[in-house]
């Protein structure tokens, strides 16, 4: 078994309104910053042991589809890297 960390990024699908990001953007603009757009995303780091990277990715993808993301409103990415154990 190898130790991995999977990084899951969950973001709203394009076209889904993100009121919190809009509020954050307005707040940055009030602070005097210039920006075109701001998007927010959730990131999860999952430590796990697996036979290989692809089985780690498969397990974390299933975690993401079952709970971490809501497919109605979210897209997600899973990136797996070996972890110093």
């Amino acid at each position, binding site marked *: 078994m190898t130790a991995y960390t999977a990084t899951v990024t969950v973001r709203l699908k394009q076209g889904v309104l*993100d009121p919190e990001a*809009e509020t954050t953007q307005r707040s940055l603009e009030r602070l005097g910053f210039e920006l075109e757009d701001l998007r927010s995303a959730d990131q999860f780091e999952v430590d796990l042991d697996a036979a290989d990277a692809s089985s780690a990715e498969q397990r974390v993808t299933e975690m993401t589809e079952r709970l971490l993301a809501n497919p109605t409103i979210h897209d997600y990415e899973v990136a797996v890297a070996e972890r110093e154990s």
Partner: protein
Amino acid sequence: MTVAVVRFGGSNCDRDTVQALESLGVDADLVWHEDGLPEDTDGVVLPGGFSYGDYLRAGAMAARSPVMEEVRAAAEDGVPVLGVCNGAQIGCEANFTPGAFTTNASARFQCEHVHVRVENADTPWTRDYEAGEVLELPIAHGEGRFEVDDDRLSALEDDDRILFRYCDESGAATDDANPNGSKHNVAGLTGDREHVAVMMPHPERVTLADIGGTDGRGVLSAFAD
């Protein structure tokens, strides 16, 4: 008819719901989610509140708790199931109904009375109303904006599965009368079968004339037979 009002850690409309049902002559019991559904359950309400502190997404944790498999099985046996507010978020997260209830367009928690128009009066939840009737119901949510992809929404509309839309006092479903930015002003809808329904406004809070109105009685009277 004994209705199980399923209480999760963070539910806070559970006791109101029991009282509202009892005011209609319906037997109702609080059921702690870890205890599972009683055998004589012939109705289920998923009440409002903040189950699991709204961690991850409102309703996400409760939707995946073991009792929900029992609720799903009961629904498949024909037991009526209603999710209100946090219960609606749980119902969508559990795929009882399509779509998702997510952050209000205002990005704020909103607690106010709104008007909704009865869209389909031919369901257990709406048969005490007329199609097009305007009700005044309270909302109290930060994540009540109904989101669903356009194709799915069209299919829901074609199948008459929208129960209520936010509207103004005269019944017009305008943007101004939409408190949270819900797509097509959707405030409540049914699942694949009409005895499963979710809605963000609180019918249980308007069941007694002395405390603000009775417009919600019709929804809960689905449990009265």
